[in-house]
């Protein structure tokens, strides 16, 4: 069963008037909404390739006109900062995703074991944190005051490393794998950790893909933790680098000075758009391949929270 409606048996349907009306209405509404979803990306993309003077005179373009790559050239003139942010984000995403998937599946596996007498107690121990939490302030104070998060890379990894929801998805997925498999392995002499690594993980590939994608997206798009904990611009991740660049004209002027251009000639508007494209690019290019797993994962997770 896929969510794209493939479960509906494909048979010849007679097109009567009302069916035609419904489907025309559907094509128009869905088509329109799909265009609205796409439009902003198109606008940002053409704005990033438009010469600065045109934009100052006429505003951001709706249709592509004169073509210029000066904004990108300037963004990449001093590529170290962008490359560093890219590298940092990629590294944090990779490490964080591996840890998050490992933690969620290992915990979920233990709680899915029906012969483990304390599973409900522990499940509640985890689940309670979604019902009540201390909120931002005590958490932030703990991280800054006692765990030394200020300007440390692990401040970008740890906050997103464990999600109770992902753990619950893992638990309900693994509970659906026949217990006999684990039992027979146990008779062969395998211990619980071996069963988890050698049997349960290979049998849970759709789960792993889903959790990896959820986690990777959370890490890649994270700016919040960077904003809270990082002040050193050598440790800015990609989204926060974009945010600080968009936010402060000061940062722009700095880049301009470094690259030795006069202030009025700096394509500030174009640079903002180009930077947005640079920060969004990989995700948008990858997502048609990832979307399938997301749809699958949502259906796994939706069965029971």
């Amino acid at each position, binding site marked *: 069963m896929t969510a794209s409606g493939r479960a509906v048996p494909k048979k010849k349907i007679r097109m009567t008037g009302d069916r035609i009306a419904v489907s025309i209405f559907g094509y128009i509404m869905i088509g329109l909404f799909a265009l609205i979803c796409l439009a902003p990306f198109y606008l940002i993309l053409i704005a990033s390739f438009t010469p600065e003077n045109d934009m100052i005179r006429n*505003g951001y373009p709706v249709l592509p006109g004169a073509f210029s790559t000066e904004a990108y050239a300037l963004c990449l003139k001093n590529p170290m900062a962008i490359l560093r942010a890219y590298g940092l984000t990629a590294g944090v995403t990779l490490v964080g995703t591996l840890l998050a998937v490992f933690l969620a599946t290992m915990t979920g596996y233990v709680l899915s074991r029906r012969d483990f007498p304390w599973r409900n107690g522990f499940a509640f121990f*985890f689940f309670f944190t979604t019902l009540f939490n201390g909120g931002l302030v005590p958490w932030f104070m703990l991280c800054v005051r006692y765990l030394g998060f200020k300007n440390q890379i692990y401040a970008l990894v740890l906050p997103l490393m464990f999600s109770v929801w992902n753990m619950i998805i893992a638990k309900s997925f693994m509970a659906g794998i026949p217990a006999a498999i684990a039992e027979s392995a146990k008779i062969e002499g395998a211990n619980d950790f071996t069963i988890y690594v050698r049997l349960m993980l290979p049998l849970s590939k759709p789960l792993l893909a889903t959790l990896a994608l959820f986690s990777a997206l959370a890490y890649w*798009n994270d700016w919040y933790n960077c904003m809270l904990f990082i002040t050193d611009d050598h440790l800015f991740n990609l989204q926060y680098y974009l*945010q600080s660049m968009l936010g402060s004209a000061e940062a722009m002027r700095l880049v301009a000075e470094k690259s030795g251009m006069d202030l009025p000639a700096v394509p500030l508007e174009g640079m903002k758009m180009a930077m947005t494209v640079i920060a969004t690019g990989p995700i948008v290019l990858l997502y*048609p391949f990832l*979307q399938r797993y997301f749809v699958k994962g949502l259906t796994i997770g939706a069965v029971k929270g």
Partner: protein
Amino acid sequence: MKTARIRKKDKVIHTPAGDRVISSRIPAGKVFRKHWLLLLMLVPAIVYVLIFCYVPMSGLVLAFEKYQYRGGIYNSPWIGLQNFKAIMIDGKLPGVTRNTILYNIAFIFFGVIFEMGSAILINELRNKYFKKVSQSLMFLPYFISWVVAGAIMYNIFNYERGIWNSISVALGGSRFDVYNTPGVWPFILVFLKLWKQTGYGSVVYLAAIAGMDQEMFEAADIDGANAWQKIRYITIPSLIPTMMVLVLMAIGNIFRGDFGLFYQTVKSSALLQPTTDIIDTYVFRLLINNANIGVSAAVGLYQSVLCFITIMICNKLVKVANPDYALY
């Protein structure tokens, strides 16, 4: 002989000498011996949750303290309810609470209409490629960060160069300063939220539609129902249970705002605060900009307690409506 409390799973054996209870409780020592490896596998997650979730709960004492660097969270002077008094004097709490609730109600209400509506319409589409491409496009906004969404907003609504104003001027209209008009922000923010969430949210409804019994439609065909009637009387009623659960879960979080949406688009503009300030942005401002730790913790405590109460009530309601979907 007085026996211990008999638990549900205990086995009771009736003998001529009286009932014998075999306890289902497994002694802790036995569990440790038998399942030590499983317990060990739980340790990382337990440690994580203890540190990052349970310890901060105890940190809520900050709400009753005058925070001092030297004293830290647990040894700063106790000042009772003074932080709460400071909130009363500040007077912003009722406004931000109202905004949080109203925004969430709008997100839930329009979210259901858009998500359910697009799922139903997508299901009616016959062209496979159109269906696939449009669904992919609708999913696209979900994949970008709020930072990028904020940049897109700026591209559209910027006063001097934004697309909105360029088009408006080109059509002979006048410029409209969105960033100085608090009244339009509820519409913009609700639209932006729908833009980002609809594709993703419709997947659950699509799955529910795919799981429906096709015989119902065939029976309706035989009875001569038209396409609109089938949607009205079969598809929508079948989606109601799914909708109820999602809505109740969302209502449980009605006091929690989407910080990224508000922070990245409004950009802490004081002018727009009356219509865009929510509890989460208020707490953040108190903590980061004002460094007023006690007061912000007090607002946070207020939010956590309200959240807890609403979640409990909503879960009760889910249990009544459909026990399978209750959270616990």
